[in-house]
């Protein structure tokens, strides 16, 4: 039944509940079961002793912890760290558990365990209090003229809606306009490929079949400005496969060198380093969400939640035999973003 209930009445509507008139009668709270400690003074005394013992154990534990803090100093030898941690921890554990188990044992065995019943009052206030509350609200409304004065009310809403906004806008300098930062990496025409993290340049002849080199642009070493930010876009995997295994599009035929290819290491899913290379399957596996890319086929996605292939870095070999980038990547590296394909 859906009667519109009065403001003041508390609805006792039962909805879809089935209220049977001949439900089984409530027999009342079960009678108290006497414990051993209730009827036997000997048991009670034993229980009291047990509780006291537990508290005493706690005192012992805390004292031990205090002693252990000084008795086990730490130095470069890692076993001293282990010992200090171990004994301090054992002491504190005993100190805590002694109190806890003791208190609970005390409550269970010695404190009265008679279940009692306490009445609940309806949460909703009685009718007269509710009516009085509504009276007060109505009075406040009348005296302020809140409902009556439309102009005041509406302009108040407007003011309250707008005043927090400056508080939000001052967070505007949390970070700069992302601009074109995601479209460019430290790779330029002629940048040498260098070993991560020491920055030594890589010769093509060093990259034998089945090798994997983790590479960064030359000059990007710890201590340089924005080291991690640049590395987060510029990290590259350098791999050599048998040249006849490479499936290359016309456009990319000169991006590799005798089976040596360079691909961005930043996963196009959400940015983890795609670092696992399986030599025989020539698949690249990302350990975070298991996106798998086929290295010999432009690193297109063969499994996992990624959608786009890894961007390829076009490379060449200079007169001294070192591997260099022909240019920056031809597309933004890393995870997708809304306007990545918009020509900037």
């Amino acid at each position, binding site marked *: 039944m859906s009667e519109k209930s009065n403001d003041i009445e508390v609805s006792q509507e039962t909805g879809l509940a089935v209220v049977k008139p001949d439900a089984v009668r409530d027999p009342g709270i079960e009678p108290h079961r006497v414990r051993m400690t209730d009827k036997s003074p000997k048991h009670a005394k034993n229980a009291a002793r047990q509780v006291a013992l537990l508290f005493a154990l706690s005192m012992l534990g805390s004292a031990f912890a205090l002693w252990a803090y000084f008795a086990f100093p730490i130095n470069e030898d890692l076993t001293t760290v282990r010992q200090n941690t171990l004994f301090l921890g054992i002491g504190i*554990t005993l100190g805590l*558990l002694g109190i806890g188990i003791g208190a609970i044992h005390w409550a269970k065995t010695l404190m009265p365990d008679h279940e009692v019943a306490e009445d609940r009052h309806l949460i909703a206030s009685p009718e007269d209090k509710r009516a009085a509350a509504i009276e007060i609200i109505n009075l406040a409304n009348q005296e302020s003229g809140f409902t009556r004065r439309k102009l005041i009310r509406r302009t108040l809403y407007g003011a309250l809606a707008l005043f927090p906004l400056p508080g939000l806008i001052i967070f505007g300098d949390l970070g700069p306009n992302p601009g074109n930062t995601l479209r460019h990496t430290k790779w330029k025409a002629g940048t040498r490929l260098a070993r991560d993290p020491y920055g030594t340049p890589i010769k093509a002849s060093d990259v034998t079949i089945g090798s994997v080199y983790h590479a960064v642009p030359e000059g990007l070493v710890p201590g340089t400005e924005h080291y991690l930010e640049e590395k987060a876009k510029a990290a590259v995997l350098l791999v050599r496969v048998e040249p006849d295994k490479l499936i290359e599009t016309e456009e990319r035929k000169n991006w590799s060198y005798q089976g040596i290819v360079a691909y961005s290491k930043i996963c196009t899913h959400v940015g983890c380093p795609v670092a696992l290379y399986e030599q025989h399957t020539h698949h690249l596996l990302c350990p975070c969400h298991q996106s798998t890319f086929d290295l010999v086929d432009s690193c297109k996605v063969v499994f996992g939640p990624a959608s786009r292939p890894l961007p390829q870095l076009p490379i060449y070999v200079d007169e001294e035999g070192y591997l260099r980038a022909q240019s920056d990547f031809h597309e933004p590296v890393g995870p997708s973003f809304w306007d990545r394909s918009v020509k900037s």
Partner: protein
Amino acid sequence: MSNTTSTQKKNGFLAGTANYVDERLGVAGVLKEFGRKVFPDHWSFMLGEVALYSFLVLLLSGTFLTFFFQPSMTEVVYDGVYAPLKGAHMSIAYASSLDITFEVRGGLLMRQVHHWSALLFVAAAGLHMLRVFFTGAFRKPREMNWVVGFVLFILGMGAGFTGYSLPDDLLSGNGLRIIDGMIKGIPFIGTWISSFLFGGEFPGTAIVGRLYSLHIMLIPALILVFLAIHLVMLVLHKHTHYSGAGKKDTNVVGYPLMPVYVAKAGGFFFIVFGVIMLISTFFTINPIWNYGGYDPSPVSAGTQPDWYIGWLDGALRLAPSHMEFMIGDFTVSMNILIPLAVSLLFLALVALYPFIENWITGDKREHHVLDRPRNAPVRTAIGAAGVMFYAILWAGASTDLIATQFKMSLNQVLTAMQISLIVLPIVSFIVTKRICLALQRKDREIALHGRETGRIVRLPHGEYIEVHEPLDKYDLYKLVDFKDYQPTLARPNAAGKITVRARIRASLSKFYFKDRVSPATQREIEEARHHAEEIEQQVQKAIELAK
């Protein structure tokens, strides 16, 4: 006045203190009101306390850590005692975490206590939420408290995530990288939010300091506020109790606050703290020294977030390939947006469930007696399906570990999980509902006919029967005291039209209540008893004859 002084002297120190405080704060009334307040005593009611106490442990251990941790991302060269990192470049945040571990007495212990109790906090809160769900404790008047609790759970996840990202190590740094990648994929504003969060390009030098503010100030403050609301509501509503003899919607049965409950609950704080301390003494957690400082190039096999973020990571992993599409020149990353949407939808359903169920049943009474899960079969089955869904997403985050530990193919594990995500929740709904109905039938059977004693008697006319022992009235009441609902039909409203709302409500009520087992009534039990007595007479005769 000399009268008061002599009274104080007579009643001793305790009374004296009480008087002193009361004369300044007038709190005697509070003590009278709450001192003997009754709290029911069931172990499943303590899960919320476990969460509360582990939060206290987090505050204590966290305060210690704030005195030693430095949330700066400025690069330094490590010169501490841990040999494999000596000379390595790292942030000050990571270096100070290493110092806490290796050079502060009790530092490693406190780090481990802090991290273990964080895992426990969210686990206990989650299990507590499940208990509240499966016993229907979220019904009126506690719907708002359910929402407050839900907010606390989310805040707990946030506190944990911001916390374990503070040491700026390789594992948590990759977690931040994943978050950044997800944020970048948000249409229109993604790259801007990413720039705002990290103060520029990832990783930048701002994020640890900002997460620190969130982790030690804003989120704990919010948790304390919502916790206070949660506990005030608990006191206001009084605690629920399981059905049973003497327990009604109009009373609360249990033990008085002082001294029993104070002793048990107070002691329990020491137990929770002690067990956390025990595990922190003997089990390593988050060995940051193995991971090294964060660098976007290396990564460890088995990169997972802490368990409570696992279901979100699993959602990312289970998304199929090639789910991105273009609208003109713009990229829409469905492989990120769909897991996000699914997670948010799941959370929304969890938060709103009490209101949905209440709309269907239309029961506007207060409920203070809990349901046994079997007596609300569809709710329990929905809960089981939800748990299964969450669990599969959670397991999805550890596909690579499952593959290595059980020597399976990573790819097959993933595909199996993608299928399970759809199939298993449905299966667990059906199975759970059937189990609940079967248990209800068994209860009804026992209520009417009593317990099977295992005594077989052969009656004079050749029939074999098993003797049943009737339940005592207390046990009987527990089995029959539950609420029974029936489905409704869609009825026309005042204008004579059957609205869509009414139709939906009717079909949902059918979904919920069409299969039901009603509680045994007094008459049914009396009939069964009467029948049992007749048989008992025959049994007695048979025993006589056998003698």
